[in-house]
């Protein structure tokens, strides 16, 4: 990147916004961060990080398959992630060791399929690293629109199931006794998680989704016990991390994935340190 960072912040922002690709990247990043921050908060509460990570990885064969078949990448991401969520939701949550074994197998097989699609499509190496680790260039207007629609739907659905979901996540047995359909709510949540993972993949790359899905939420959980404040804080941190990451990636030779994960991890460390010394 040829742009140079100066001490004049207004000038920096003007430089940052001079190309449409960067504006698109920031738009997509903001949408994705809001969705990931909110859904990630529930994922952390429910201890479903492994499922979340697997859903994110399932996006890779989706995108690779879409590229191979010549359809829109976003469709591949969303299609595969939602299908993966359905497969994981079908396994009863009874014995955790068995469920996680299923998740692990699904994950490995999905990634292997991704490898197959990439090698069938002969553009072997060029796009692969971008797909896995994200890039700030190449996010189109259509992609931003798809992300916006999917994100808005996911957030609306989350708002509808938020109360029973929170209840079921905090105390599944009592929730069941009070008439909450725990299994259904859990399955619906996995679907939302799939949508969030698919969206985030397109900005941070498949492998680094956790920077937005788990780190901001984990930071928020360490700072407040109030769910509403927690979700808000998680969203704010996710958006901040994305802006910082995309901004710095624009001015530096290193890729966005590195910066986003680093800022997210720094927030997490600060929050952990704060809690250790403040309490």
């Amino acid at each position, binding site marked *: 990147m040829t742009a140079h960072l100066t001490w004049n912040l207004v000038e920096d922002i003007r430089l940052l916004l001079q190309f449409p690709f960067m504006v698109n990247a920031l738009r997509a990043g903001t949408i994705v961060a809001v969705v990931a921050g909110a859904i990630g908060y529930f994922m952390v509460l429910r201890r479903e990080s492994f499922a979340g990570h697997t859903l994110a990885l399932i996006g890779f064969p989706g995108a690779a398959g879409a590229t191979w078949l010549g359809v829109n990448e976003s469709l591949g991401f969303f299609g595969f992630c939602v299908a993966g969520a359905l497969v994981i939701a079908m396994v009863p949550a009874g*014995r955790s060791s068995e469920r996680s074994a299923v998740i692990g197998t699904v994950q490995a097989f999905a990634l292997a399929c991704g490898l197959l699609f990439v090698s069938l499509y002969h553009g072997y190496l060029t796009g692969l690293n971008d797909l896995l680790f994200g890039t700030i260039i190449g996010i189109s207007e259509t992609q931003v629109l798809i992300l916006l629609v999917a994100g808005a739907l996911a957030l609306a659905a989350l708002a509808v199931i938020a109360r029973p979901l929170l209840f079921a996540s905090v105390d599944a047995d009592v929730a069941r006794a009070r008439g909450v359909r725990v299994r259904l709510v859990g399955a619906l949540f996995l679907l939302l998680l799939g949508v969030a993972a698919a969206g985030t993949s397109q900005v941070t790359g498949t492998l680094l989704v956790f920077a937005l899905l788990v780190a901001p939420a984990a930071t928020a959980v360490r700072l407040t016990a109030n769910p509403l404040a927690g979700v808000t804080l998680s969203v704010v941190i996710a958006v901040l991390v994305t802006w910082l990451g995309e901004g710095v990636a624009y001015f530096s030779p290193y890729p966005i994935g590195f910066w986003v994960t680093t800022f997210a991890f720094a927030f997490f460390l600060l929050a952990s340190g704060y809690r250790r010394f403040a309490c």
Partner: protein
Amino acid sequence: MLSQPFMQHALLAGTAVAVLSGIVGYFVVLRAQLFAGDALSHVAYTGALAALAAGVDLRLGLFAATIGVGVILGLLGGRGSTDDVVIGTTFAWVLGLGVFFLALFTTRHAAGNSTASVTVLFGSIFGISASAATTAAVIAASLVVVVLLMARPLLFASLDPAVAAARGVPVRLLGPVFLGVVGASAAEASQVVGALLLFGLLAAPPAAAQRLTDQPWRALALSAGLATAAVWLGLTLAYAVPTLPPSFAMLAVSTSIYAAAAITRSARGRDRTPRPCG
């Protein structure tokens, strides 16, 4: 097929690593530490890329990173599933570092483009050299011996840590040591199926074995056997159909084995009384 030297090397390394993964994976599944394994597989990537960027042998970085992080996870978490948020946040960042090293490596070696990254992530067993295959086999064999030596206390500690601790099993020591071994196995398996596809050998065969038998020693042997079968069948398949990448072929076989085991189990399990859920 067996007269080809690249195939001989692939079979040597593949078999050794499969036996190791089957045995170690059985305990990983039993202890529900798959998420820790997931983290280690990603750490392997960063380790390998850091070694490449520094210009040393790739395997050095691979083993140093996975064993180091494995021991740290063991010391921090006790049981891997307890604090998956810390694991998740940390390995996301470690992977981010991996991207950083990739960028460093690609800018410094204009010719050595991103092939290395793909090799580490998805393996290249047909490209393994004779010396690398022998080293991998020797390391795998010694790790198998280590795991078998600590198998009894580890089994006890995995099934009932409280009682095991009361009976004098060093539970707190076993956790980090075991995750260190998982780390080393992850580094080994990365050379065969690639860092991202580790679970094909580390999760699917043990999970299939667990579905087929409840008897621990039999399951352990079965798990190693199934992993080996997956590697052999996968390699044969990839040799016969050159368009299939070998890593995909091995993974496809091991996933089918798991699916078959799950179906047999649920078909057999219908007339059984349901087991109490833990």
